[in-house]
Structure formats: C-alpha cells, structure tokens
C-alpha cells in the first residue's frame, strides 16, 4: 500500500515542495554527462522497465495519462496503442524540432539532460514495440545537437543503446537527424517528410496518420521531447505517484517557458492542472510579477499560434479542458507576456510575419493569405492603413479560418468567449496561426489599431473649386 502523495495547491507553497520530474538535474552544472546522470538515478527507469513485460510498461504509461507536451496534449500511452498490431517495423520519431515562437523548454531538456531523453526513448520503444528511434533535432539548436550526440555516443559505448540493451533481448538503435531550419517541420507529418529526405511539407491526415502510415510508410509514433523525458521518473516512481501530482485529467508536471515582460522569465516545471497563470506570472518562485510592476496587458498562453488572453483569464489553471472553452490553447507551453507599454499592432505583426515567412507554400490560403495579412498589417502599423484594411484583415483571415475564430472573453469589452479550436481550409495549423495573433489583437485591442489608421481629411471647398477650374480649363 502506497501512501498518496499530496501537494498543496500551487499558490503559496514553498519552493522545496515543488516536485521535479524532468528538471531534477538542472541544478547541476554537469547535468548532461553520463556520470552525473548515473549518480542521480539515471537509467534506473530503463532497468525497471526492462524487468517487466512490455505490455505492463505500456499499461503503466497509459494509466499515468502522460499528456503529449508538443501542443495537442494527446495521451502518449493511448497514442502508442493506435499502431496496427501485425505491421512491422514500427518507428519512434522524437520531435525535437521545437520552433513555436516563445517555446524553448525542449531545448533545455536536450541541452541539460540528454540522457534522460535517451532513456525515455528506450522505454517508449520497449513499451510500444518500436524497433528504431529517430531523434529529430531542430537545425538551429547547435548545443542541443552536440549534447545529444555526445550523450548518445556515451550511451552506445556503455551498452544502454544498441544490441541487447543491458544484457536483455531488447535491441534498439537511435538515429540522430538535424533539421535544416523550417518551422513547419515541427508538424509531425512534415517532420516525417523531412526525415525521409523530402522538402518539409505536411501530409494530409487521413490517409497519412503516422500511427498507421508514417515514416517510410510504416506505423510511426511521433512524441515530443518532454513527453519522453517524463518516462524515466514514471518508471521509477510508478503511475500512482505520477497521477498524485496535478489533476486527474492533467497529471504530473509540465514545463512552461515564459518570456516577455516579467521580472524573471525562464523555464519552469509547474504542477499540471492546478497551477494558474496568476501563480506562474506573479508567484515569487516563478516569474515574480510584471516588469516594473506594470499592468498586464495581454499574454499568449500556449505558443505563438494561440489566441491571446488578458488579465481576465489569469485565474485559469493549466488545464486543457478549461483553457479550450475559454478561447485558446495550452499548446507548447510558451507564455509570452505583454505589459501595458506594449505596442499591440506591432506585436501582432511580429508574430504574423513569422508565420507568413514560415509557411511551407503548400496550401494556397496559408501561402497567399499569410503574406497578404502581413502586408495589410504592415500598412496599418506604419500608419498608412485605412478602416477598410482592418476589415480586410478579418476577411482574409476568414478565407483561412471560416466561421467564428476562437477568442477570450473580456468583461470590459463585453465579449464572451468563443471556444477553441477553429475551422480551417489548410492542412496544418501554420495558416490559422498567422491569423490567430492578429484576430486576438484586433478583437481585444481594436482601438489601438484604429488609432493608427489614416483619418479622412476634409478638403477645403476652395481647394476643390480650384481643382475643378484647372480641370475645366484643360
């Protein structure tokens, strides 16, 4: 009989109480070495897993409800169960192409604790019967690439990866692959295309559900780095200990990357499901409040693609079932904070420019619409836009996302929330992502845009009559 571990609600607990599942080694300067990893319980989870029947390990992960940390939040254990039974080989693809604006948690996991990730990969392969692992690391992350490559060499040399791991009958190879710098490759099917050596462009689901028809046409599990990094702890401590943290629907911890106008930006491991945005942004152990104690104007709750929240939503917890109906998403765990000094149209332009630039060019609405949005918005930010341009933005956006676009409620503006997600005319989320920040900005801060528009100039009557005289004389 295990004693249930209880953690107080995130507000007001002292730093020591905070459970650390994936960042436990971050305090050590040499956290990325095999030596440190082994001295802090490294590969114990793998040993424990290999001592059990694979299906048991899979069940353990399933009952822990480890939610995917890449953005969609789909439970990993359930995802593993979606591959067809009798088709081999099956592959594990690790999505380390973290490129959502504002997100940098996976980078730290790869840089500071690469062995934990490798151990997670091995446990996943063992549990889900996957015969090879492909670790795809974003092209720009040089240090992460180096650290993971070194760790992998160490792990191979020490017999943790390769043939007959730890003397068992379990063998798996991990292949490293470095991206070439494309945001869209963070989308799982585009990542698979890129791994296959093609141009990174998303495939349509159906028929290309990776679990059935993924890498090289084989069943493929695509997992996020953080998701896999959870597995060693889970193996050692069991699913009961895991689900004791957080809520039933969002157990465990999750990493969030906070950037922007807070006193103490950075990556934090917070308790899932119970921690609120207020805890995170104002809690002394986290961000410690807004810079200069300014007022909070808006924040992005889940990566650049997410519709924005304002102070009205601060008390929402990190719980998908509450954030979705409130009009946004938790996404990749990137929180970008804008204080009262923020130039909202310019902030929206920064994000829209990113998505327009990163469109892979496949779907017409994203390729043409993204750039169109950017160009209209540029005019407005530069002060040459008109009222019609503002309307035009919403109409172009509707060509990418027909119907009501999700947004948060706002008491002052009298808005009620439109729940996430949106409808879209594109294959993947890059298209809608270009529109999301803009739609939020215009919905919540329309007056700031209007202030920039070109005003109608009333022409003096004398000027008109002079002009008509000139014209008449010609």
């Amino acid at each position, binding site marked *: 009989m295990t004693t249930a571990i209880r953690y107080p609600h995130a507000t007001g607990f002292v730093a020591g109480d905070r459970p650390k599942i994936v960042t436990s080694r971050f305090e050590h300067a040499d956290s990325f070495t095999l030596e440190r990893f082994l001295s802090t319980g490294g590969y114990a989870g793998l040993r424990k897993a290999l001592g059990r029947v694979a299906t048991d390990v899979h069940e353990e992960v399933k009952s822990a409800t480890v939610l995917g940390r890449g953005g969609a939040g789909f439970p990993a254990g359930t995802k593993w169960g979606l591959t067809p039974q009798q088709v081999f080989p099956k592959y594990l693809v690790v999505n380390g192409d973290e490129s959502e604006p504002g997100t940098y948690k996976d980078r730290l996991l790869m840089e500071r604790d690469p062995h934990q990730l490798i151990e997670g990969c091995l446990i996943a392969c063992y549990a889900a019967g996957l015969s090879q692992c492909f670790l795809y690391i974003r092209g720009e992350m040089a240090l992460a690439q180096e650290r993971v490559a070194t760790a992998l060499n160490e792990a191979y040399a020490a017999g943790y990866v390769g043939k007959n791991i730890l003397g068992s009958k379990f063998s798996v190879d991990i292949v490293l692959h470095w991206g070439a710098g*494309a945001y869209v490759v963070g989308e799982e099917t585009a990542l698979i295309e890129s791994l296959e050596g093609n*141009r990174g*462009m998303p495939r*349509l689901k*159906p*028929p290309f559900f990776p679990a059935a028809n993924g890498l090289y046409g084989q069943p493929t599990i695509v997992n996020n780095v953080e998701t896999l990094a959870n597995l060693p702890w889970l193996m050692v401590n069991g699913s009961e200990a895991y689900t004791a943290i957080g809520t039933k629907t969002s157990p465990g911890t999750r990493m969030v990357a906070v950037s922007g106008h807070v006193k103490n930006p950075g990556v934090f491991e917070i308790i899932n499901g119970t921690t609120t945005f207020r805890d995170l942004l104002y809690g002394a152990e986290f961000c410690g409040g807004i810079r200069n104690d300014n007022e909070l104007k808006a924040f992005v709750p889940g990566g650049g693609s997410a519709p924005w929240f304002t102070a009205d939503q601060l008390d929402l917890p990190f719980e998908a079932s509450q954030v979705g109906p409130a009009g946004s998403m938790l996404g990749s765990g990137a929180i970008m904070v804008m204080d009262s000094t923020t130039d909202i149209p310019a902030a929206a332009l920064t994000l829209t420019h990113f998505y*327009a*630039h*990163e*469109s*892979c*060019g*496949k*779907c*017409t*609405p994203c*390729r*043409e*619409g*993204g*750039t*169109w949005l950017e*160009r*209209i918005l540029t005019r407005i930010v530069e002060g040459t836009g008109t009222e019609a341009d503002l309307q*035009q933005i919403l*109409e*172009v956006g*509707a*060509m990418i996302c*027909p*119907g009501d676009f999700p947004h948060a409620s706002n008491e002052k503006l009298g808005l009620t929330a439109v729940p996430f997600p949106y*409808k*879209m*005319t*594109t*294959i993947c989320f890059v298209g809608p992502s270009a529109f999301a920040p803009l739609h939020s900005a215009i919905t919540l801060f329309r007056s700031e845009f209007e202030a920039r528009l070109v005003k109608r100039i009333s022409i003096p009557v004398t000027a008109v009559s002079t002009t008509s005289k000139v014209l008449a004389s010609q």
Partner: protein
Amino acid sequence: MTTVDSSNATPEVAVDPNAVSVTINGKVVAARKGEMIIAAADRTDDFIPRFCYHPRMEPVGMCRQCLVEVVGPRGPMMVVSCMTPVADGQVVNTETEGVKKAQEGVLELLLANHPLDCPVCDKGGECPLQDQAFSHGPGESRFVEEKRHYEKPIAISENVYLDRERCILCDRCTRFADEVAGDALISFTSRGNNTQVMTFPDEPFSSYFSGNTVQICPVGALTAKPYRFKARPWDIEHVESTCTTCSVGCRTVVQSSRDELVRYQGVDSQPVNWGWLCDKGRFNFESINSKDRLTTPLIKDASGNLSATSWSVAIDSAARMLRTALTVSPQSVAFIGGARGTNEDAFAWAQLANALGVDSRDSQMADGLPPQVFSLPQATIADIDTAKTIILLAPDLKEELPVLYLRVRHAAEKRAGRVVEVSPRATGLAGKAWKKVHVEPGKTAAALRALATDAAFTAQLASGSVVVIVGRMNLAESEESVVHALAEVLHMAPHATVLPVLRRGNVRGAITAGLTPRNGGKSTAEILEAAAAGKIECLVLLGADPLSDVPDADLARRGISGARNIIAIDTFITQSSALADIVLPAAAYGEKEGTTTNVEGRISNVAQSITPVGTSRPDWMIAVELGTATSHDLGVASYNELHAAMISGVREFAPAVDTHAVQHDGVIVAHPTPITLTRTDSASSERNSYDYRAVVSRKLYDNAIGTAKSPSLATLGETSAVIVNPLDVPRIGAQVGESVRVTSPRGSIALPLHESVDVLRGTAWLPINLGGSDVRELLDVAKDVIDLKIEKMS
C-alpha cells in the same frame, strides 16, 4: 395452385464488398472504397473546382480549391474532396454557402499574385484558372498590394519555359516528373509566398516526358517552345488521332490553326497512354510543317539530277519502270517499307504487290522480328497493370517506346507486378526491376535456361500471369537469338502472354496488311543482297530509307547502288530517296486519314487535320494510281472504299468495323490460332579474337527524319560513342572522352570512349543512328553477334 417463394424469386446478386454509396448534393452516387470524393462527384453533374487534383497522379491536397462539406457526427466538416475517400452513407455537399465562400476565398487567393496577363498568355481560352475563376470565383479581387515579380519566362529545358509569376504552385508538374516519369528534376524551392518551381542548379529539366507537364499545367506557367505564341485556343481545330511516331499508338488530339499543325496533346486512353506522350511524339509535328517537305514529284533528268515534274509524268514513268522490270521477272521487283503509313496505305500497296505478283515485300528494315511472334498468345498493354511478372526481353523501353516505359514503371512502382529485366545492359527500368539478368549477346537463351533451376524465379513465374515484352534488344544480335530466348521463357512459363514490341509506327499494321515476304519472297536484307548482286530491276521504297535504317551500312550501300531503278515514295529527300529515279511526294501524318495498328494489335484511327503539303498524296492513292497505270485496277476509288475493302479482305482487321471504337480507344485485331515455339539448342557463339561484344540500340532522339526535321528536337540528340564498363577503360588505355578506334570484322571507325556501369564488362554499347561516326559501318546483319576491337589511337 402454386405458391411463389419470394426469397427464391430474385436471383442472388453477389454483393461487391468494395461498393459504397454516397450522397452528393442529395443525389445517390455509387462509388468504390478508396475512391476520392472528387472522383465520385465527377460522375454527377456537379463539378467540384480543382487545380492540383489529377486522376492519373497521387492526390496532394495542395491547392485547397476542391473544399466541400462532409456531414459528420459533429456537423458539416470542410474537407478537400481530392484526398478524402468516400465512405458508405457519406453525405457530401458541394454547393452550400460555406463551401461557396471557401472556394471563392481560395480562388481569390490564387489570383492575388497571378499576373492576369491573359491577353498574351498561350493558355488564355483553355485555362482552368480562367475558367474556374469565371465559374467558382468571387468575381473581383480585394488584393491591392503589388504582386509578386519574377523574371519571366525562364527556360527550364530546351523546350519548356517556366513563368513563375503565373504559377499557382499546384504541384502537378513536379509530381508528374517524380511520380510518373521518374525524372525528379523539378521541385519546389524557397517557402511561403516565395515558393517556386525550379530545377536544380545546372541541371535542366531534360526529361523525355517534359511536354506532359506543359499539358497538365492548369495555368500558363509552363509553355512549350514549339507552341509558344503560335495560335489562340479558339482558333484551333481539333481532331482525335493516334500518334505513329513509335508503335505504342498513344491517343492524341492533333491541333491545327490556319491549316498548319500547331500542337499535339495526349488523350487519356485507359488501354494505351493514360494521357501521356513522349516529347518526341509531342513535338515532331514540326517536321510536317518543315520547309524541306517534298511538294512535287521528282524525276531524274538527263544529267542525273532529280528535278520537279508532274504527277502524270511521274506515275507514267514509274509504271513503265515497273512493267519493264516485271517483264524480266516478278522476282526482280521488290517493295521495302510501309511501316510509316496507315493500315490502308499498307493494304493498298500489298494489293498492288499481289496484283503485280511481287512476293518480295518487307515493311521491316532487317531490325525486327519474324511475324510469327504475332501468332503467339498475345498480351495487351493493359495486361501489364495486372501481370504478376513482367519479363523484359526487349530494347530499352524508355528510349524506344517511352510511354510503354511509363506503364511498366507504374506497375513496378505500385508493386502490382515484378519486373524481370533480361538485357545485355541496364535499361531505364533496371532500377525498378525485381530481377536483372544482364547477359552478354549470344548467351541470352542459355542464361534463361539456367534460370529454370532458380527456385525464387520459377516460384515468381508460377505466382500468376506473366507478360513477356519481346523485341530486338540488340541490333548487333540476330533476330533468331531473340526467338530462342523467347522460347526458353515460354517453356518456363507456358501461361505467359507475349507483347511483341517492334518499334516503327505501324509496322504491325503493315505486316498484317500483307507487307511481309510471302511465297518465298525476300526479306529486306535479302532484297538488298539481291540488288547488290544485280538481280533487282525495280526497287520501291515506301517511306523507307535503307541507307540510314538498315543496321548494316555496307549491305545497304551495295543494295541501293545495285538496284537498277528505284522508285521512292517519301515525305522528304532522304539518303536513299536522293538516289531514286523517281520520287513521289507522300502526304504525311495529319494530312491523311486512316487507321493504324499499335504494338498490341490495337487498331485506332489517324485523322486528317490539314491539307497535304503541295501536291503530295496519301500512299494508298499512289498505289491505286500505279495499279491503274499498270493495268491492275485495285477496285477502290476513295478512302472509304479502301477501308471497307481492307476490313473485309484482311481477317485480322475485321474488328475495325466498329467505327466508333476505332475513333476512340481502338479495337484489338483478331488473333490467329496461337502457335507454340520450340526450343532449340542455339549454338553458343564463341568469341573471335576481338575483346568486346557489341550491343547496339537506339536512343529516343536520333537522326530519324521526324526528329531531324523538327527544330525543337534536332538539337537534343547525342553524338555516337562507344560506351564500356568503367573497369574496362584501363584495359583500353585511353582516357574517357578520348577518340578510340573501334574495329569489327566489317569495318573500322573512330568514336569517343565513354564509360557507364550500365554496360557489362567485355561488352561495348554503341547507340546507333546518332550524329558523328556511323556505327552501322561495323554491323553485319548476317552475323549472330559482332565482336569488336577497341584501341587507343596512336
């Protein structure tokens, strides 16, 4: 009183497990599992707009134009109909307000950066973007920004130009190049709004199939040099026809404007070409418009030069020549050729030969197969799709019968069947072959016999239907060796069917119509040998040019110079017709109507699109006139009478009575009772003292008259070379690229030395009929194999 048991009253209908029924805009449509919604909708009146979707390629969901609503458990969902498969009971709406808005939105976005230079665009008037902007577009644009600009157009190959401003990035051309042609030479570069189709640096889009990308481009982004600014679509006359450049018999639309051919387009014929054409067949209409075409009869004057004359003089002189020769003996008259015309042309000339008693007629140029191959159990082109095993005992299909290559490649790509390549060198399909039997000339039959002990191979043969594609894979090897090899295959796989691939346009039709030796008459090689010996009084060349086509230069030369008189019926002055006594100008493809017969024996029509140039006439008309002038009335006075006489006179052509079918997908000839081949122990030909066994084959772009007279194709050919395995290069002692002396028992020429791993060690590959030294100087049609000496030049 009897009772009727209702359960027995209706016969049991087998339920097709793949049949589903979907409701599209309230109409119930029968469909098959795996089919996409757009394909099912195409069988109704409701058109779903599309750009990237093409029924012959994998869907990609790129343009998003075909968005429709599918009613799901959570209400209507917007999906792309080109990538969403049908499901039983599915409800699809293609015309709701939501769909209309989404489709208008996509069209507005597609037009946002499109230059709208329609007045000067070749595609204007037949442009899917124009048409669908009209039918499914919003009617106006709200895009006020400056449009994207690129240099326009840029040449991505010799014949294809790319205008990136017009491009809507539908992925059709790039998918075609990769998926269908296997020449992934164009791809997307850059991203976002700057995404563009591009070739790789310093690597042009030199695909044999590049013209197809122009045809399937839904805008004017890709244009073909031969058609650029030649005509407006609304001024074009269209007739459906069959390409006779090679014997695949691709269905085409022949297009003319102001009585001049301007373009050929592929027609999607399920049994033949699926809409594809090769560039040679697509662009060689230029030769028909050539200024060098013969426009008037020519006759040798007193000084020995050919000079223009009238038809009456020419026909009279020709008839006199024939009569004089016949008085010597009917054996002293011979007809060579006829494979370039229609079935009716060949039939008329065969009738004339019968009337005159001429038994020596041959439409093959000593590079074919014995006509008995047509009496083996026959395969059709479509059989390739379902065959478990496809055995290639044939020349490089990519070079000689390109669209057939696409079909075999498709079968291998889809893993529908396994390809076994039996060849003296790796062909274009080697990469797709399950098994490669590369064997030096002269040993093919023995190698196949040895395969009988290969358990995996015999199990593969036994696993299902087998199609053997058989042809002359090496012109330096006798036709008997091919027959021997075929006999071995048919012995191992008695259930196999045979697709004989003779490459000249209508060679099968000509043979079937009777232009093949009979009653002990001579073949082309024998005719030339007889002529060389002074035994031919009158030689008639029916569009044949032995001096450039017979793979034995010495024989052809001796034959042509030994014939007392030569009458040539031709479209151009060729090497051989230049030496004729009388040259009669023939109407060319597109200038006459008729039927043609392809490799599989499919009879389909060739249509007249323009008036014959000058006073040229169809070959059949010349035969009829010569008949009349020699007092042998052939009994026909019009094309229709001739066609009818042919159908009733030639048993194999009887199915052509179905005129409608002949004018579309064609009908297969009636097959004779099948014969069986007997295996013979072919004497294995020992090597002489020379080192390299010759492999001689054709390339797509060679000196053939249709290519040489088409400016867009004439420059594409390579020059002659001798190509050996890289491991053999040091033995020769010369550098790659250096000129070496190549000697056979017949002759000796200088050729540049090239290397390729596709060539077996101890063999040398010599592409024939290219510019540079003439490889035929080395060849001897009387020999089973040719061995060569390759020496560094001092």
